[in-house]
């Protein structure tokens, strides 16, 4: 018995061993599926009879029948094709009529009217207008009542501009009117018809506006990764090393790694988290201005100007349901992407959001683009500096025609220039100058802008390049009119009094080709803040820096002629006509406002700097010039709303300029004479 017991026990033991060996390993294999045998994923099968399968459509499906194509039903809603009458917007003229305010006129309304009146859009007749603009009142006391104007016509071709979020629903039947309002809810927004505006603070500047606050391209290595928008306003800066999720209500965060900055109006962080539920918050614009990359969590409102602005280049629209995933993605984002997003926020802020005027013009420009169709701004013009407000589609729709996009386009400039010589009232035909300029190997043509009362001479000097005389009508601003005769990208603007040598022209042009968006000039001025007068002033005295170049001898892109004539407010152009010195200042302001960069100075021979008249020839009393000039710069600065001029401390010289080496080595040796 004992033996049998022992035997059976041993048997049982050995059998259980077998069991373990046989059983455990396969069981393990089943129980731990984390290390499966590498096997090909089981894909969609390859059918034996693929050849026999029928196509999804038969020819008759594609042909359809001659049924009446019924208009697509649309339940009373609007889209561009059905609700906007483009027949009133003939040609390139996009005219806007602004309704006068009903009742007491608000300051905003007043300034808007004034601004539009000076712009290229303005018309004073509602019948010839393509778009009728109705500025909704922000007067809370009176409710949201709006008087329906006479020309309402069901709202057709009307734009209801609501710069501040509506405190109550629209009282007028909107009908076919385009609604432009701040942070419109996604559900009621009609894409391609309505325009989404940014939510502007009450004290947003009307014109000019604060520049972006980004001072570095790349973030400081020790700056916080995240700033969180707080519901009561302000920002909460999360620590740089916050690995815990920073969402309130989602998880708790180590209190040591954060510093609350109550009332921080401007976030100092790389990313700014903005919840999508509170359309009333101003966080989005604050982040843009600060150069803090907005991370929008499931926004329930349409992003401003989303029709044209590619927000994926400047913001991250993430799903609020995946906070940890978003955080991980932000932490791992490659520096190149962070760099690009940061810069884009600043560009967008400066181009479209920094002032009320820009917001309104952007809205109009979007509607104009819809009308223009194929000749509207290409997307690149909207989404890269200097932005669509400064790149007019009436000039060209091809980005490589503009001075800004050559690198992005991989295109090249035409290696020639047109010399445009302005002959003022008292001037003699500049025969010597024509010879010198036409002698340049890069000169394509000489254009004489004859503004003198005397008739132009019948005979001009023989030149190697064609010479054309254009009637200048005596107006100073005509200097910068986009004459169709200008056939090259580069323009060399000259006065009859200028004196340049061929060598100077050659070198300046070669330099300009490296900086086609800037002005390249010989004589410079610098602006300064006059503490005593509390105003801007400028001087032609020799200084260590400069911010303007004299257009009596300067290279620039012909596009600036178009911009000067079509985008500057009328008041400023009139100012230039009345005070001829101003035309230089104005042109410099314009180019600086577009490029945000200083002009470029190239060397010129010494005596010219001193002999140069302070005012443009044609002005009768040069002695009055300094005072007039001062007034000019302050008036122009007021017209722009800010001071765009940027100073430079360098001059570009030929590589061997004035070096103690043999003159024979030097390509531009004539530059050093005198």
């Amino acid at each position: 018995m004992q033996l049998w017991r022992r035997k059976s026990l041993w048997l049982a033991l050995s059998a259980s061993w077998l069991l373990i060996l046989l059983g455990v390993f396969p069981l393990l294999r089943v129980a731990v599926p984390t290390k499966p045998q590498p096997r090909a994923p089981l894909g969609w099968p390859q059918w034996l009879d693929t050849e026999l399968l029928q196509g999804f459509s038969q020819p008759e499906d594609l042909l359809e029948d001659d049924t009446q194509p019924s208009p697509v039903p649309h339940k009373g809603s609007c889209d561009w094709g059905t609700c906007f009458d483009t027949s009133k917007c003939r040609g390139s003229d996009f005219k806007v009529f602004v309704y006068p305010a009903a009742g007491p006129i608000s300051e905003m309304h007043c300034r808007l009217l004034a601004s539009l009146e000076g712009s290229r859009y303005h018309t004073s007749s509602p019948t010839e207008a393509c778009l009728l603009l109705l500025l909704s009142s922000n007067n809370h006391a009176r409710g949201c009542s709006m008087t329906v104007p006479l020309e309402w016509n069901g709202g057709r071709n009307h734009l209801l501009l609501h710069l501040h979020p509506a405190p109550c629903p629209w009282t007028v039947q909107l009908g076919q009117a385009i609604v432009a309002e701040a942070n419109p809810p996604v559900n009621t927004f009609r894409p391609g018809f309505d325009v989404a505006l940014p939510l502007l603070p009450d004290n947003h500047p009307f014109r000019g506006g604060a520049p972006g606050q980004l001072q570095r391209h790349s973030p400081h290595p020790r700056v916080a990764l995240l700033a969180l928008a707080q519901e009561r306003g302000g920002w909460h800066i999360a620590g740089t090393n916050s690995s815990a999720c920073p969402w309130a209500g989602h998880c708790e965060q180590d209190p040591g790694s954060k510093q609350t900055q109550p009332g921080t109006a401007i976030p100092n962080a790389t990313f700014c988290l903005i919840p999508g539920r509170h359309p009333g918050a101003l966080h989005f614009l604050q982040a843009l201005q600060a150069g803090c990359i907005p991370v929008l969590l499931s926004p329930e409102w349409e992003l401003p100007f989303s029709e044209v602005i590619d927000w994926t280049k400047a913001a991250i629209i993430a799903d609020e349901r995946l906070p940890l995933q978003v955080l991980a993605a932000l932490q791992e984002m490659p520096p190149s992407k962070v760099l690009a997003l940061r810069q884009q926020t600043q560009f967008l802020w400066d181009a479209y959001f920094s002032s009320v005027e820009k917001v309104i013009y952007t809205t109009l420009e979007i509607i104009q683009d819809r009308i223009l169709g194929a000749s509207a701004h290409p997307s690149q013009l909207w989404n890269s500096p200097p932005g669509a407000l400064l790149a007019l589609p009436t000039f060209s729709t091809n980005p490589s025609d503009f001075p800004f996009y050559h690198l992005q386009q991989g295109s090249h400039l035409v290696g020639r220039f047109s010399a445009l010589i302005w002959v003022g009232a008292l001037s003699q035909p500049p025969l010597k100058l024509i010879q010198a300029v036409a002698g340049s190997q890069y000169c394509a043509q000489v254009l004489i802008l004859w503004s003198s009362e005397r008739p132009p001479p019948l005979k001009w000097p023989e030149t190697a390049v064609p010479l054309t005389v254009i009637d200048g009508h005596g107006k100073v601003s005509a200097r910068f009119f986009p004459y169709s005769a200008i056939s090259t990208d580069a323009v060399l603007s000259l006065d009859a009094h200028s004196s340049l040598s061929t060598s100077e022209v050659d070198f300046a042009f070669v330099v300009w080709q490296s900086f086609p968006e800037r002005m390249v000039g010989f004589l410079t001025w610098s602006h300064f803040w006059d503490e005593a007068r509390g105003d801007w002033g400028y001087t032609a005295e020799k200084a260590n820096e400069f911010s303007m170049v004299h257009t009596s001898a300067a290279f620039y892109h012909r596009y600036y002629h178009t911009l000067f004539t079509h985008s500057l407010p009328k008041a400023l152009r009139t100012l230039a006509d009345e005070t001829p010195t101003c035309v230089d200042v104005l042109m410099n302001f314009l180019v600086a406002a577009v490029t945000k960069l200083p002009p470029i100075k190239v060397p010129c021979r010494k005596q010219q700097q001193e002999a140069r008249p302070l005012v443009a020839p044609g002005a009768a009393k040069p002695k009055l010039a300094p005072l007039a000039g001062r007034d000019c710069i302050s008036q122009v600065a007021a017209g722009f709303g800010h001071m765009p001029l940027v100073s430079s401390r360098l001059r570009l010289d030929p590589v061997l300029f004035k070096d103690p080496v043999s003159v024979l080595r030097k390509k531009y040796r004539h530059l050093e004479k005198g």
Partner: protein
Amino acid sequence: MCASVKYNIRGPALIPRMKTKHRIYYITLFSIVLLGLIATGMFQFWPHSIESSSDWNVEKRSIRDVPVVHLPADSPVPERGDLSCRMHTCFDVYRCGFNPKNKIKVYIYALKKYVDDLGVPVGNTISREYNELLTAISDSDYYTDDISRACLFVPSIDVLNQNTLRIKETAQALAQLSRWDRGTNHLLFNMLPGGPPDYNTALDVPRDRALLAGGGFSTWTYRQGYDVSIPVYSPLSAEVNLPEKGPGLRQYFLLSSQMGLHAEYREDLEALQAKHGNSVLVLDKCTNLSEGVVSIRKRCHKHQVFDYPQVLQEATFCVVLRGARLGQAVLSDVLRAGCVPVIIADSYVLPFSEVLDWKRASVMVPEDKMSEVYSILQSTPQRQIEEMQRQARWFWEAYFQSIKAIALATLQIINDRIYPYAAISYEDWNDPPAVKWSSVSNPLFLPLIPPQSQGFTAIVLTYDRVESLFRVITEVSKVPSLSKLLVVWNNQNKNPPEESLWPKIRVPLKVVRTAENKLSNRFFPYDEIETEAVLAIDDDIIMLTSDELQFGYEVWREFPDRLVGYPGRLHLWDHEMSKWKYESEWTNEVSMVLTGAAFYHKYFNYLYTYKMPGDIKNWVDAHMNCEDIAMNFLVANITGKAVIKVTPRKKFKCPECTAIDGLSLDQTHMVERSECINKFASVFGTMPLKVVEHRADPVLYKDDFPEKLKSFPNIGSL
């Protein structure tokens, strides 16, 4: 093995206690063990269900053998589509979870044949195109066969053409899918929606929350940011071989090739033809052709017969007019022919309009402006037409050409919504390869002059020339804008001098020791660099004056995206040898600056260390030379801009090395440097260096002006 030893040890110890146990106990134990053995054996040798199913799948099967599913007449029907659906309301993003590759996982349901109670099929089992589409998804990176890990589900129920299916029954079939859950995260593909008489612009099959990739959406049915608008595939894409034709003006300015147009539209078009003569051609189906000829491939104008789609290549603009449906397969044919589509279909949501910029490839004309089409088109400049033709062809190649292209673009769009931070950019979607190649996107594109207060960090690379190093430190520390000094100690065999021996300077001085003596260490993006501006300076550059360095920094501020250096060098094409040559003679041109002393943005350190193309970085470290040329190449290539040479400085004279600065050494040096240029040019695949004829000097440099009033009076000479 370990376990068995334990057991044996424990075994004998157990036996004495067993004595008292009952006999039945052993019998029970024995039988349990025996049963276990048998069970294990069975488990071992039983065919595994998973493996068997894979065998079943891999083997080629016939469509006719797919399992049949009977749908009871009263099985549930999903709700109609919810028009308010958006990704963050109707899409279950949790299923997609965290994914290091940022790629969604797509599951395809197995193919089944659905029949109703009477055994009548619900629709075509599967069409050729839908089979191709599912094959394409299955072959892509998105595919998963694990239903529990999938983020997106694609039913194998074919709804490409609404005409081939029964609406209610198809909806019932969808509703009984195993993970249907109101259609959440399900994607349906439909190209021909609606049917007579009213031709809805979206699929009529009730589908609840399912996403619809549809051809022919109108703005009223399209849920922006949720649905995907796709093309109507043209079967001719695969059937006809049509060689590419370059852009340019063609025989016909405007062509209409569609058959079965509504009479009113046809009248409008024919009026255009009457007005503009031979430049407009309006074609129709051929009525008098003999039987047997494929009429879909022929078009007629009066008695003239044209081959289709070849005739599209003879036209500059081609009309794509809506029929009863908004989406038309002819769009695909037109794009392929490089003909600019003139789309006349109000409220039509163009294919992939979420990502494709159709303004670049087409002209949209409102239906009521049809009579003015010709004049609208005529105002388009020639260059723009050619651009549009190229773009049209590129759209076809990338997104219309095959069912696969359509399927992958659709999934990419959905993927980009779920992983927005890894989304493909506008340029990636829209720029044709030729543009992508030639364009430069400057990483520092924002025109921004950094404030002077930021200052710069000087990085001195040194090995063991301590005395010279200390002199450099002392000199550089005199520059007003210096904010920090970083010494990169590249000598592993020797410790840097003690702290007390270093010169006392007004800014923080930090020594970084490196692990290996490599030239690239000078371009490493050290965390210690807090300023954007970096001054790389060798440990023997003592001739640069404080004014010169400060001016260099000022110049960098005006050109923060460039290399700003002192001595310039030039690359030249040697016609005899047919290769590049390095030039250090006193030339009138500059294309490189030496980084023995140069200002540049810290970001370029990151690029040099992590993004240098090819093996250049290793090559430089191995040769212990040309790191400066590599940096010049890198910066010029990514910014498309030239260097800025500052001040007259032509060479760095180091007093100690004049003795060995012999002619022969100089020549081998030049040969090596030329070799570098050729090597780098071949790695970059192009010559990125830009030649300029200017240098930067202070505004009043060598001007007749009192020296003491100049900002930078002490600019050194050559």
